[in-house]
């Protein structure tokens, strides 16, 4: 288990969740696991941040919860992207790209 990293950059968690769910519906634990795997354990999502974020995104209509079944046959809540979620993902990606490009320029200039 990787050591808890400093808080994710403000606002990036939404982007990460949306991106993760773009690959297919997942339940809460799987979302955090997937982020961890995809980032090669650099990013870990604290449960304390994950669930409020999931509920917030759901409330805004970007993701939707649906009933699903786990491998063991238990009823679980699966999250997937909505149409608005796809648009939001595109927006956030653009924002992130220009943001990181800006940061990169600053860092390289020094």
């Amino acid at each position: 288990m990787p050591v808890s990293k400093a808080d994710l950059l403000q606002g990036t968690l939404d982007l990460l969740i949306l991106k993760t769910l773009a690959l297919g519906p997942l339940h809460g634990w799987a979302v955090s696991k997937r982020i961890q795997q995809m980032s090669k354990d650099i990013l870990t999502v604290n449960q304390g941040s994950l669930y409020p974020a999931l509920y917030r995104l759901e409330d805004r209509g970007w993701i939707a919860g649906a009933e699903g079944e786990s491998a063991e046959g238990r009823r679980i809540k699966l999250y997937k992207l909505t149409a608005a979620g796809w648009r939001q993902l595109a927006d956030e990606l653009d924002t992130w790209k220009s943001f990181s490009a800006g940061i990169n320029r600053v860092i390289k200039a020094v």
Partner: protein
Amino acid sequence: MDAEMRYHLECEAAEYVRQGSAPDEARRRAAREFGGLEALKEDARDARGGRPLEDLVLDLRYAARVLRHNPWFTIAAVLTFALGIGAASAIFSVVYGVLVRPLPYAHADRLVVLWERHLPRSKDQNVVSVDNFEAWRDSARAFDGMVAVVPRPVTLIEGGAPERVTGAEISPGYFDLLGVAPARGREFTSADAAPGAADVVILSDGYWRRRFGGDPSVVGRALSVGGRPHTIVGIMPNVEPPRFGWLGEQPLWFPFVATNENRAWGRFLLVIARLRPEATLGQARAEMLAIADRRSREAAANEGWSATVTPLARQITGDVRTSLIVLLGAVSLLLLMAVTNVATLMLSLTRRRARELAMRRAIGATDSRLFRQLFTQSALLGAIGGAVGLLTAAPGVRLLVMLLPPDVPRVDSIRLDTPVLLAASGIAVLATIAFGTVAAIRGRSSAALAASSQGEGRISPRTGGGTLVAVEIALGLALSLMAMLMARSFIALRAVDLGFSSEGVVVARVGLPGDRYRSGASQRAFFTALLERVRALPGVESASVISARPLGGLGPATSVSDPREPAVPASQAPVVDVRFAEAAYFRTLGIRSSRGTTFDERDDGDGPPQAVISESMARTLWPDQDPVGRELHIVINGGITATIVGVVGDVHLMDARTSSRPAVYLSASRFPSEQRDLVVRAGGTPEAIVPSLRAAAAALSPGLPLYQVTTLPHLVSTSLAADRFATILLGAFALVAVALAAVGIVGVFSADVAHRRKEIGVRLALGARSSGIVFILLRQSLARAVVGVIAGAAMALLLARSMGSMLFGVRATDPISLVTVAAVLLGVAVCATLVPAIHAIRQSPLTVLRGDS
């Protein structure tokens, strides 16, 4: 959410197992990493939009739990609040029905009543003469309609026994002005009001249903009125006609016909007008003043007369207005008091739970969260109490209507309907917000205090109870003062010497049908015979007749003068009440005879008429002289000169409140009339004599009814009904208020003392004397009470001023009342303090110091 998070934990644990941990260890580790499940849920809920609603549900559940676990508190708070809301709603519905609800007429806000105004006597509302009514109607531009109405007592002979009712004569266009169309038939036209027109009549809905069973074919049929057939031309819908002055129920209407005869009667018309839509009341007043001013110069009869304009709604409401507004003010105080008490109760509950609240804070509840939680509790309480209160308002209104004095207008319009219920609910919500906010703010700070001091060991500053106590005392004092003043006024009214003795006296009105008793001689003969028969009845001590019995409202009055004195201008001559009485009248009513004798019944036409005058009249015309034997000029029947044969004591002809006016009595047999009031003094129960009185009248003239049959004690009691009503209601309010104050003070103080048990224990252990401790507690409580008394006295004096016109024989600033109620309230405060204080010092200091609770 719970399932989701638990599943997360299980997945996490499974993951650790896969990584090689033992299952137990894995679960522990997962739980550790996950953090507080509940806190997480809170955060997650926060992120979601439905948060406030979800909180509300939680808070409501929590509040319901708290209320359920404190049943006595809940019952006390709900009942207190329900009492306040119920009383306020009931009074409000009466006030709304009588004062606020629009009159059932089209353009009711534009309807006004026009009066003549007698400047020398500063009598603002005098009835109107026919000439002036016609002049006003023809020249005033501010109105688009003006009608006259005058009561007309008639005897109806339809089917069985004759019936005596008081209808009204109305000028054509009366109902059109009110905007009420006949349900059947038509309204009077100007042709109906022309002299010599055929006799016609319009029936009220009530009379039509009562007498004709609602038969629509009666229109066009004849109705015998006073022995003459009248054609029924219309039936009105069930709309109450305006009632003011001496207008009564009005079961039927006749056209008012202006004749030379009634032009000479003087002033007797009631006039209603409708303002033009664009005209203001001020313009109408100015115009009426100008017209009256012009007319006062045109005719001698109008000298000294002006005119006034009063909105119809205000006119109908009349004197009741002040007392209803005072009652509304009083019930508002009571409601405030109930709100204060509920806040006090809530506060003491919160204080008892201060540790729990402190704990909630410690584990992360924010201040605003605590506030909401406490407020929700109040809101739930307010909703229950308010609902109970509104439910009790309906029987409350019925009770009030039953208690209402008989002269209150528009009782039919008193009901609990949408506007009233909306207003009452609004009041309940506002009241809930008031006590909820107070309780929540105070409660939160007491939680903060408990948190900081970790319990109740320390001598704590007061937590707001003091202010509430002062408020309770102030409100209780204000209400008690109002009740006290009203009670003193009522006692003073009852103690007024009316000038006659009412015990055992029956009164009844006799109206002879005009067709059978047209001549004065036949009327005189009838009443002589009637009195002979009545006096012969067993049980009758004395009997007589008079033109209008005491307590019968306004009667005729006119100006008098001493013919030997130089003539004074008519406008400055004293005005006295005139009554026509039979010789035995004074003895029958027990009116004191101070000089001379009564009428000589053999005086039947020759020589000057005899007059008996009242003491105050003797003083007015002949101070310090014996008036017996003198002559008196009376402006009546074109002016007569009477010889004074006796002087009798003053009698309150109107009611106890109106001071007795000078009066002159003339012989009833010298001036016969078809209508007289029979007065009979009978021993024992006066009601028992009534059947034989009816029989005596019917024996003389078959079918002749007695009406308005009642007893003088009943009339005396009725004349005090309005004062009794206000006294009972204010008294009840004051009693409840003092009880609430006592309960509230005990509540606050018990909590205070409980809070200071350790301090008291320490003091006792260190050797303080119990009397000293009681003294300290008492001093603290009295300090608050004195603040309340001072504030209450200031408020009470302001409020009492508004009820000045209701009071009789006692001033609004009456010091005795003020000192008495202040003493009572202080006494209540002391007693309410002593109970918990004595309880506190009774306990052994050891128990207190050792034990934690």
